[in-house]
């Protein structure tokens, strides 16, 4: 085997799959976004016509799209810091001890990640229900008026975000725990001998060493939240009055429910570019930060 082709042989299977199922679709979306492809055109491609940038023009003039963009922004701003801080804090605390109790607790914190989305919608829908839900029952016991968690246009985004945070922390706790385990114990022991307090050890040794993990978790979490779909889809279907519709959900509704594939394609491309731009900005900011 020639030496040059060895690396290609290693990456080829994964690359092929990623190109086919990750890169190709965005190219297809780009092409489709320039047409008026609908359900009929999907069966017979000759039926779809070239419309230039019309889809982009009407997208940018569509108030529902902008509402979805704004909602997605709110989700991201609310959710990302919550996910990163919570999972880091829980990981730091869980890492304090290797005892049986602490290890058993990990499973509890991991439960949200493995709970099927059907169960998420049922259980949280029940917790949040205005009339019969547990949260309002507890508020009632405390003598407080009921809250319309999922049906008040102002409250629905935070309520949905809480569920997404609940689901999102589990995996990141594992990533942070893995990163924490990789920190040589000697560093911490040496600092402890020098009389550094626990808080100080965390802020001046652990957190700097976790820098990479924090950046990684932040970047991937931002990407995930800009694509948030499951939680608003199963909890509210985007309501009330579009107040919880995310961009991904908007695109799904336009594409699969309404059959406007050209329009959805244009939206897909815009969302992709937004995610790419936000990610690049973050990576660049970290680099400046480091130098």
């Amino acid at each position, binding site marked *: *085997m020639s030496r*040059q082709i*060895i*690396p*290609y*042989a*290693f*990456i080829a*299977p*994964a*690359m092929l799959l*990623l190109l*086919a*199922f*990750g*890169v*190709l*679709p965005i190219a*297809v*979306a780009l092409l489709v976004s320039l047409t008026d492809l609908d359900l009929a055109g999907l069966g017979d491609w000759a039926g779809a016509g070239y419309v230039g940038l019309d889809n982009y023009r009407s997208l940018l003039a569509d108030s529902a799209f902008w509402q979805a963009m704004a909602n997605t922004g709110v989700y991201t701003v609310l959710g990302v810091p919550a996910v990163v801080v919570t999972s880091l804090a*829980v990981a730091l*605390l869980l890492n*304090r001890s*290797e005892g049986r109790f*602490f*290890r058993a607790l*990990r499973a509890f*914190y991991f*439960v*949200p990640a*493995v*709970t*099927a989305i*059907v*169960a*998420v919608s*049922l*259980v949280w829908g*029940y*917790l949040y229900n205005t009339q019969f839900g*547990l949260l309002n029952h507890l508020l009632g016991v405390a003598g407080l008026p009921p809250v319309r968690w999922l049906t008040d246009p102002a409250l629905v985004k935070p309520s949905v975000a809480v569920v997404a945070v*609940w689901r999102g922390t589990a*995996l990141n706790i*594992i*990533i942070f725990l*893995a990163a924490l*385990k*990789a920190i040589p*114990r000697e560093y911490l022991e040496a600092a402890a001998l020098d009389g550094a307090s626990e808080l100080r050890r965390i802020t001046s040794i652990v957190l700097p060493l976790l820098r*990479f993990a924090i950046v990684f978790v932040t970047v*991937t979490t931002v990407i995930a939240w800009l*694509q948030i*779909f499951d939680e608003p889809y199963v909890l509210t279907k985007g309501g009330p009055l579009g107040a919880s519709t995310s961009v*991904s959900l908007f*695109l*799904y509704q336009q594409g*699969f429910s309404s059959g406007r594939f050209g329009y959805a394609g244009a939206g*897909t491309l815009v969302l992709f570019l937004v*995610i*790419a731009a936000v990610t690049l900005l973050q990576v660049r900011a970290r680099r400046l930060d480091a130098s």
Partner: protein
Amino acid sequence: MRADSRATTAVVGAVLGVGALITAFPFFWMVSGSVKPRSEATGHPPGLLPHEPTPEYFAQLFGRLDFAAHLLNTCVLVLIGMAGVVITAMAGYGFAKFRFRGRGPLFFLVLATMMVPVQATMIPTYLLLNGVRLTDTLLGAALPTLVSGFSVFLFRQFISTVPTEMIEAARVDGAGEARIFCRIVLPVCRPIMAVQLVLAFIGSWNSLLWPLIIADDQRHYPLSVGVSLLNRQIATNPSLQMAGATLMVVPVLIVFVFFQRSIVRGFTLSGLR
């Protein structure tokens, strides 16, 4: 000093315990809901524990679903998912330890796939799978999500911390590339492997969209799709759905509890400390 630290650990343990209970509360609610008779499920105020637990809904579940067939399909999906982890590890190794023409742009493509909205990929992916005649196969259902940019990135990151000298030494000893990968790289990757295997397991166990779209035949539905059939359009039976969801979650939890030991052990064996 020691007693002080032990007290702090106890406090931390208590805080974590409360947090864990809150985090897992929806799970407990689901399990308790799955054995509540219908009258209790819709009762008000909500009861935390069922007064008269009933196995009725689990019986219904097994009666209505072709359980064995669904489970077999799910297991095949999980096995394919595990094979995907090996492919991902290979790619991570290739990007971490080789310099080759096009490495930068190719890795950029890997990262770019993470940013593609999932809803956009469905129709092109289906046409592609149909083109290569993989519809109505479980392989076709597993392929679209087999490799993710996220996992390749994690593997590359992890493998780049492995000392290159280990690999070079083996090469000098005349070991073939495949042998180096299997005997040196994979064992060192154990901790990240454990994480990835758990992720792959959860992903394939819960995967719903592709198995459903790809299957032309109900016999090829995995458990996840079978359970989602119980979801009626408007009138739902919460207890039955809770039973279905419980049935889906419990095996995953068992796998996690089992694997989390090997995650921990993996770290001690990896020689990274």
